[in-house]
C-alpha cells in the first residue's frame, strides 16, 4: 500500500500525542468515517472550532486516504498494523484504528464499489401491438407490429428507449434473452460441489 509523502506525514501527526490529544483523535476518527460513509450528515454542521487547525486538516485528509487505500487493496488488520507501527503510533491508538477499520471495512468497500461506469439497466417494459393494415405500396398487409418501450435506469435517473419491431424480430429478441438467461444459469453451475 503506497501513500504519498504528504499523507504519511499527516498520519504521523495523528499518531503524535503532542499534536493531537485523545479527544480530538476520537473526533477525527469519527469525522473521517462520516465523511466516507454518511457524508450527508456532515453537510449542515461544520466541525467544531477546536479542530480548525492546519495540522488536523492534513491529518483528516491523510486518515481518509489511508482508509480508502486500505479497503481498496482489501488489507486485513495485521498488515495494517505493520504499516502503522512503522509510523510510531501508540498501542492504544493503533488498536482503535484497527478496530474502526475492521468494523467498517465492508461498508467502505461498498461505498467504493458504487463508483463504477455501467450500461443502464432495464427496469420495466411497456408494449403495444398494432395491426398493420396497408401502406401506400401494398394493398393489404395484415401483420402485427410491436411497439416496445424499455424503461432504463442509470445513476438514479431513468430514461426511455423506444423501438418498434415485427413479429420475427421480436421472437429473435426473446430468443436471445432466453439464451442469456441460460448462459447465466450455466455459469453458476459450472463447478459441481
Amino acid at each position: 500500500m503506497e501513500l504519498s509523502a504528504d499523507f504519511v506525514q499527516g498520519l504521523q501527526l495523528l499518531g503524535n500525542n503532542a499534536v493531537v490529544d485523545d479527544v480530538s483523535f476520537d473526533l477525527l476518527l469519527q469525522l473521517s468515517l462520516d465523511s466516507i460513509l454518511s457524508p450527508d450528515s456532515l453537510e449542515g454542521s461544520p466541525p467544531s472550532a477546536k479542530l480548525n487547525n492546519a495540522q488536523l486538516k492534513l491529518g483528516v485528509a491523510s486518515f481518509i486516504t489511508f482508509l480508502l487505500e486500505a479497503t481498496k487493496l482489501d488489507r486485513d488488520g495485521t498488515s495494517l498494523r505493520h504499516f502503522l507501527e512503522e509510523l510510531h503510533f501508540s498501542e492504544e491508538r493503533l488498536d482503535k484504528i484497527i478496530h474502526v477499520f475492521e468494523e467498517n471495512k465492508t461498508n467502505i468497500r461498498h461505498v467504493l464499489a458504487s463508483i463504477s461506469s455501467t450500461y443502464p439497466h432495464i427496469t420495466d417494459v411497456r408494449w403495444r401491438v398494432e395491426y398493420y393494415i396497408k401502406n401506400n405500396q401494398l394493398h393489404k398487409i395484415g401483420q402485427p407490429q410491436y411497439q416496445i418501450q424499455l424503461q432504463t435506469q442509470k445513476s438514479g435517473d431513468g430514461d426511455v428507449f423506444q423501438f418498434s419491431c415485427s413479429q420475427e424480430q421480436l421472437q429473435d429478441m426473446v430468443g436471445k434473452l432466453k439464451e442469456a438467461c441460460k448462459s447465466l444459469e450455466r455459469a453458476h453451475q459450472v463447478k459441481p460441489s
Partner: protein
Amino acid sequence: MWRRKHRSTTPPSVDTAQKHLAVGDIDEDVQSLVQFSTELTVEAVARCIKTINANSDVPHKLPPSMSARFQIGSKLANALQDLGYRGDVGYQTFLYSNEADLRRVFLFLLEKLPKESSETEDELLGASALLQREIASKIKLCLSRPWLPPFCKLRSTKWQPTQSQWLIDDLHSMHHFHSCSINYPKQVPDVSQKIPKDVREYYNKMPFVHSQPPQYYQLPSALIETNAKQVTSQHEWDTEWNNMGLPSRLTPEEYKSRKRQKITKNIVECLMKSKKGFSDQMEGVQDLSHLLQTLECRTASLPNIKGSRFTHTQKLQFAQDDDKTVAQVSIEGLKPGREEEQQQKQEEEIEKLKADLLEVTTKLEALQFNVKKMKANLNQSEEKVTNFDGKVKEKKEAYLIKKKAMELLPNAEENIEKLQELVDSSAQRLVKLANQWEKHRAPLIAQYRELKELVDHKQDDGTVKTLNKMLKYYQMLQGEVEERLAAIQEIREKIKTSATEARSKDDLLRQLHTEYESMVKDVNRSAYTKRILEIVSNIAKQKQQIDQVLLDTKSLQKDINRLSGKLDRTFTVTDELIFKDAKKDETIRKAYKYLASLHQNCTAIIQTVEETGVILREIRDLEDQVEQERKRNIQENLSKITADFKAIKTENSALIAKLKKASLS
C-alpha cells in the same frame, strides 16, 4: 476394499474398479475376477488403457471373427507393455485368461489410472479456477435473492445478514469516477518551522477535505486520485534521479533548475519556429518571459497607448490593417434590412475617421520632426557653449599673466634678476631632488626585483604544491564518490528485489493459507497409519516366527548330527570291543553278527525316514504346483483355443474361397 489385500488371497472386489472406470455393465453376480468373461476382461482392460492414455485407440468390444479377436488381443498386450507392465503378456492373457494373471494386470492398470475421482478436491487449484468458482458462487447468490423495489434498498444493495455479504443490485446510487482537485495544508508537520502569517490565515480558512468536492460522494474518487498522482510523480522522480540525476553529480535543486532552463529554451525555440511573422522583429529575443511579453503586447487592444516605443511603431505599421479589418467586421455584421442607409452612414463615418486619422498622423509626424530638429539644435548650442567656456578660460589665464607682468614691469631689472634667481634655485632644487630620487630609487628597485623574484618563486612552489595536493585530494574524493554511488545503486537494487520477493512470498503465503483452509480434511490419515503400523507389526511377528522355525530346524539338525555322531562312535567302540573278544567265544561272534545287522537295519530305517521326508516335501511342492496350474484354467483355455483354432481355419477357408471367386469373376 482391495487396498486391504496386502497378503490375503481373497480376490479383489470389483466395486472400486467399477467406480473408477464407470463400467456399468458388470453384472451383480460377478463378485470376483474368476467370473470375468473374455468380453468383460477385454472391455475393462481397454477402458483402463483409454483412460490412462487417451491417445491409444484400443477397441472396447470383441468382434465375432477370430482373427480380429486375436489382433485385438495382441493390440491390448502391446498397449499394456507400452505402459510399462513388466510381466509376460500376450493375447492369451485377455482371450484365455486366468485369475492370477488378470489380477496382476488389473492391479497394474488401476495403479496407473490418473488419480481423478477421489483427489480432485485436493488438487491445488490455480488462481483462474478459484476465480471461476467465486464468480459462479456470486452469480448463484444474485439469482437466489428476491426482487426488492429500489426504495427499499439502502444505496441500492441487498444484504445477506448470515454471511454479511452484499450485492449491488441496481444503479440508483452508482456514479462515475469524478474527481476534483483537493487542497490540504502542506508543509505543516514540522511544528518548529514558522508558517508565515498569511499562509496560516489561508490554512485556517481552508475547508476540510470532505467539503471540497462539489458532490459529497466524489470525495473518495478525489482523494484516491490525488494520492495516486503524488505516488506516481514520486516514483517518476525517483527513477529519473537514479538513472540520470545521480550520475550527473549535481544536487537535486541544481538538476531541477538545469532541467527547467532546458525546457524553457525548447519552448522559445518551438514558438519561434512556429510563428513565421515574428522573425524580423523578434531577433535576439532569448528569454522566454520577454518573448511572452512581446506576444502579449502584440495582441493588446488599441486604447492601450502605454507601451514601449517598439510597440508604438508596430501599431503605426499595422494600424491601417486593423482598421480595415474592423471596418470589414462591422460592415458584415449589419442586417440586410436597413443595410444601405447604415452602410452609407458608416462609410461616411469611416471616411471621416480616416481623414481625422490621417490629419492626426501627419500632425504627429510633423511634431516629431520638429522635436528632432529642436534636439539637434539643442545639441549644437550646447557644444558651442562648451567651446566658448574653454576659450574664456584660456583668455582669463592669459590676462592674469599679463596683468602680473604689467605689475612687475616698473621694477623691471630687479624683478628680472629675482626671477632669474628664482628660476636658478628652482632648477637646482629640481636637480637635487632628481638625484635624491635616483638614490632612493635604485636600491628600492633592486629590493623590489629581489622580492618579486622571491615572491614568484614562493608562489610557484606554493601554488604547485597546493595544486598537486588539491589534485590528489580531488581524485581521492572522486574515487570515493564513485564507490559510494555504486554501493548506493547496489543497495537500492537489493532493496527493490527483496521488497518484491517479500511481496511475492506474502502473496504465496496468503494463497496457500486459503487453499489449506479450503482443502477437504476428511481424508482420514490416522486409519491409514494404523493399518500400516498393523501390517508392520504383523510382518515383524512373522519374521520372528520364521526365525524361530529356523532356530528349531538348526537345533534339530544339530541334534541329528550329534546323535548320528554318537551312534557311530558307540558302534565303533562296541564293534572293537566285541571283535576283540569274538575270536575266543562263539556267542560273542553271534552277538557281533547281531550287532552288525542291527546297525545295518537301523541305518536302513534312518534312510527310509529321510527318504519319506524328502518325498513328503516333494508332494507338497507338487501339490502347490498343481494348484497353480489349476488356477491357470489351462483345460478350459485349451478347449477354447482348439475351438477358436477350428474357427480360424474355417474363416481362412471361407476367405480363400471368396478370393477365388473374386479372382475368377
